[in-house]
Structure formats: C-alpha cells, structure tokens
C-alpha cells in the first residue's frame, strides 16, 4: 500500500465497499477494497464510473481521502441534492456493493515528503479531502515540514473530519489549523469568520519571502479567489498548486 503509483495503463477495476462513515449531514466517507490497488501518492484522485442496467453510464472524479500508508482506500463524497452521481454514492451505495474505479490519477497536486516546505494548505468545503491524505502521509512518514491548513466551511456542522483535525492540531507536531466559518458560527466562536481574504491570509500564511509551497482545493470560484489573493500579496504563482471542483463534484 505504501508503494508509489506505477506508470502504464490505467485500467478500470472493481472496489468492494467495506464501510460507510458519515462525516457530516451531507458528506460520507466510503471505505473501499479495490481488486488490484497499486498504492497512491497523497493528493491524487480516482475516477468513479456508475453503470445502470440499461447501459447508461456516468463518471466523476473524487480525491483520495486516505493516506498512502493507510489500510484501505477511502473516498469522501459530498452529496449534492441536484447531482447525478453523489446522491447514489451517498444514499444508495451499501457495504458489500462494488464500485468501478480507476486510479490513482494525477501528479500535479501531489505532496510527498521529498518536497521542501513550509506547506500551506487552503481548503474550501470538500476541498479538504486531498489534504487529509497529505496530512496523514506527513504524519506517517514522520516529516518535520511545517504545515498550516486554512479551512473554509459554511458552518461548524459542515466541517469534515472535525475530530481528526482537532487531534492533529492538538498534537503539536508542526501542523497549525485555522478554521473560518462563512455562514454561521457559534456565539462563543473564537476562530475566524467570513470568507478567506487578504487579511486572513496575512495573519495565517507565512510571508511570501518564506517560499512556502501552497496547495489550494475547492470549488472553482473559491480557488480563483484564494489564488488571486495570494498572488496579489506577492506570493510566487509558481509555488501555488490548485485543484478546482465543479458544481457537481468534479
């Protein structure tokens, strides 16, 4: 499971659903056992393909939520009410079912310990998913690269992996996590409020002079805004990697 993805043909394979874990009201993690998984790097994704009895097919991409060193492949899917695929994955799919997928895919949005830091991760909504893989990999290999995560969610109930993120932040292992809630927050909320802007990035990100390596993931408009703000503050666009989700997943 810890080997890097091998080059060559990218074949579709079946993965058995082992377990479903509800992360938030709208989001579920799907724990999978693929027939022939070669391992992955943190930040990669899989393509998932659904086939109806009459042959109709729909395909979407999902970031891998599990770390390369974890026991199972995990995808975390946000259910979009007007979606075509996500209401199936979060609502119909059951343990014991098989899911057709191919991967791992992608080299651009990968982080591994050979990449020097510091590491800035900027997540909007379900954009947090690949960063869970990155942070798990970082911990598994005992990396001492300093990391900061800025995670924007609508409300506390929408924060995915909340317990895991609290644990990581409390571990004092070189990972700082800043949450910003954009639509509602508890009365005693001491975290940030509102969308990610220049002021928040100035407070939380390292100065541009620190040559941080930045990854931004989330809906297209979120990514455009965050990348634009960083570049406007003098950050090197060459050290920023972006991954945009579409309105219906990716």
């Amino acid at each position, binding site marked *: 499971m810890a080997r890097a993805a091998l080059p060559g043909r990218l074949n579709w394979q079946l993965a058995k659903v082992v377990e479903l874990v509800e992360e938030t009201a709208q989001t579920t993690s799907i724990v999978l056992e693929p027939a022939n998984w070669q391992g992955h790097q943190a930040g990669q994704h899989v393509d998932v393909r659904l086939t109806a009895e009459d042959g109709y097919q729909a395909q979407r991409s999902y970031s891998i939520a599990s770390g390369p060193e974890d026991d199972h492949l995990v995808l975390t899917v946000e259910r979009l009410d007007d979606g075509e695929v996500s209401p199936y994955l979060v609502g119909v799919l059951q343990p014991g079912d098989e899911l057709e997928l191919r991967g791992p895919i992608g080299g651009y949005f990968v982080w591994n310990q050979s990449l020097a830091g510091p590491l800035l991760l900027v997540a909007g909504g379900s954009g947090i998913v690949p960063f869970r893989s990155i942070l798990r990999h970082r911990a598994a290999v005992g990396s001492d690269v300093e990391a900061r995560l800025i995670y924007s969610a609508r409300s506390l109930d929408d924060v995915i992996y909340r317990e895991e993120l609290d644990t990581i932040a409390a571990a004092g292992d070189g990972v700082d996590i800043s949450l910003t809630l954009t639509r509602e927050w508890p009365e005693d909320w001491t975290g940030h409020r509102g969308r990610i802007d220049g002021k928040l990035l100035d407070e939380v990100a390292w100065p541009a002079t620190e040559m941080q390596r930045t990854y931004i993931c989330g*809906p297209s408009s979120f990514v455009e805004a965050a990348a634009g703000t960083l570049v406007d503050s003098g950050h090197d666009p060459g050290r920023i990697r972006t991954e945009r989700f579409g309105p219906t997943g990716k």
Partner: protein
Amino acid sequence: MDAVDGNAIAGELFEVFGSEMTMAVGTCAHCGASGMIAEQRVYMRAPGAVVRCSRCDGVTMVLVRVHGRARINLACFKLAPPYDHAPLADHQLTP
C-alpha cells in the same frame, strides 16, 4: 458555468497518452502563454471536454469520445518536452 481545471481530465489524458499528463507544459497558440495542463480551464459538461487557455480563454485542446474511443485535438497547444511524445497507437492526435 465555472470551469474546472486540467486535473479533471487527467484520467482521459492518461488513456490517450499512456502516462501522467497533468504536469505537461504547453504553449497556447492564440496568445503564447505557457502553462501546465493542470492549470488550464476545462469545460467538462459538453459533448467533449474543451480546454481553454487560462490567460486568453482561447481553445487549446478538445477531447471527444467517438464511439467510445478517446480522440484529442492538440492543434492550439504545443506541448514541450518531455511530454511531446506521440499518443498510444489506438488513439488519434489530429493536427
């Protein structure tokens, strides 16, 4: 509608080229901007995937599936080495 980026067609490109292409750098034939495929704007909800330059919005690549076979047109996106290799034999690269 918002565009996604080249990460969204990574699987299709792997099929056509037989290798990872998200980090392939190419030059837009319309405006000369260089960038990685992962950073191009991609319109997926179409009878094909339309890739556009993130600087000038000109169409750089178009990916269609004709009877299930992936076909890519790279006429307006000049790939730089080492990504400028020919695609796999059973797909087409139309000039």
